[in-house]
């Protein structure tokens, strides 16, 4: 982020805190892609993701006074978005088996690389337990380091690293096309 862009965000944040609706809308536009993408990949459902993303910004609007800087804003939004998504997942009926990776439109814009592989990866990520899924998203979508992920998710760093290691192993195995070991989130695989 250039100095100009950073000052622009700070300016919008300060004006939004002062009650400027246009400034808040500017903050929403700047960060909606990040918040929505986190929710979408956690929930694998566009409607639920939109709902969670809206709720995250609603909470931001209520608690703007607590946000101290643009860096804090990013941290805050990531934290709230993942928490809301995890809470939403946990409210799903407990004993139903729900396939999580059937949304054909979940892929982003065409990117370099194999689109079929990317779609398969998106689906496999949807099979990870919620906490592990959040860790993987924060690492590879948001490019956060394990220490930062630990702060966002209020989780010990070693737990973050464990989730990463085992999730990658599970994804690698399942991409290999074998019967594949699914990561259960308890340090073991099936």
């Amino acid at each position, binding site marked *: 982020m250039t100095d100009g862009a950073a000052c622009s965000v700070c300016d919008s944040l300060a004006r939004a805190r002062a009650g400027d609706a246009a400034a808040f809308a500017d903050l929403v536009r700047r960060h909606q892609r990040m918040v929505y993408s986190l929710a979408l990949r956690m929930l694998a459902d566009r409607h639920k993701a939109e709902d969670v993303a809206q709720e995250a910004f609603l909470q931001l609007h209520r608690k703007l006074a607590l946000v101290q800087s643009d860096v804090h804003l990013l941290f805050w939004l990531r934290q709230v978005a993942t928490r809301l998504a995890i809470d939403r997942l946990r*409210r799903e009926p407990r004993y139903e088996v729900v396939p*999580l990776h059937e949304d054909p439109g979940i892929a982003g814009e065409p990117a370099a690389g194999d689109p079929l592989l990317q779609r398969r990866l998106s689906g496999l990520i949807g*099979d990870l*337990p919620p906490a592990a899924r959040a860790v993987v998203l924060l690492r590879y979508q948001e490019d956060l380091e394990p220490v930062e992920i630990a702060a966002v998710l209020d989780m010990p760093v070693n737990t973050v690293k464990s989730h990463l290691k085992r999730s990658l192993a599970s994804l690698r195995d399942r991409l290999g096309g074998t019967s594949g070991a699914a990561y259960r989130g308890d340090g073991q695989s099936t």
Partner: protein
Amino acid sequence: MRARISCLMALVILALLPQQAALAADAKLALPSFQALESKASETVSITLDSPLIAMAARFLDSDKPEDAAARRAIAGITGIYVRSFTFDSDFAYPKADVDSVRRQLSAPGWQQLVQVHSRKERNDVDVYIRVEGNRANGLAIIASEPREFTIVNIVGSIDLQKLHELEGHFGIPQMDLTDKK
């Protein structure tokens, strides 16, 4: 978000309280004194937390601590937690009569047996019951018979089994994923 309660709202809520209390009372088991168990037990845990005590405890939970944060999430909507746990020095030293009196209450309307586990290998029985009112769960009961420990847990209020289960990973309990995504 703090709710502003006017005098009128307070009166309405007070009028509704007996009805809520009646619903809660059905989900709250009448636990016997378990004197017979207590006299034989080497260790007893007896916890009675009604709504005011839970609220008081919640104020002292530190959200910066993962264990406290997990507890805060688990107790959202819960209005009562009752635990009776007895540890013995020898196997199956506890009489069944007191246990059966609790089981009889769980055959009352509204209670459904969610899980019944009998493990020959571990020699334990665990029964999990849930009380459903309309389409909402407002009570949970667990009866666990292990060789040297007998435990009853009764939780009253809005039950979220997922949140209770996520106590695993905290309190020294290993994590375990239950979702079968095959």
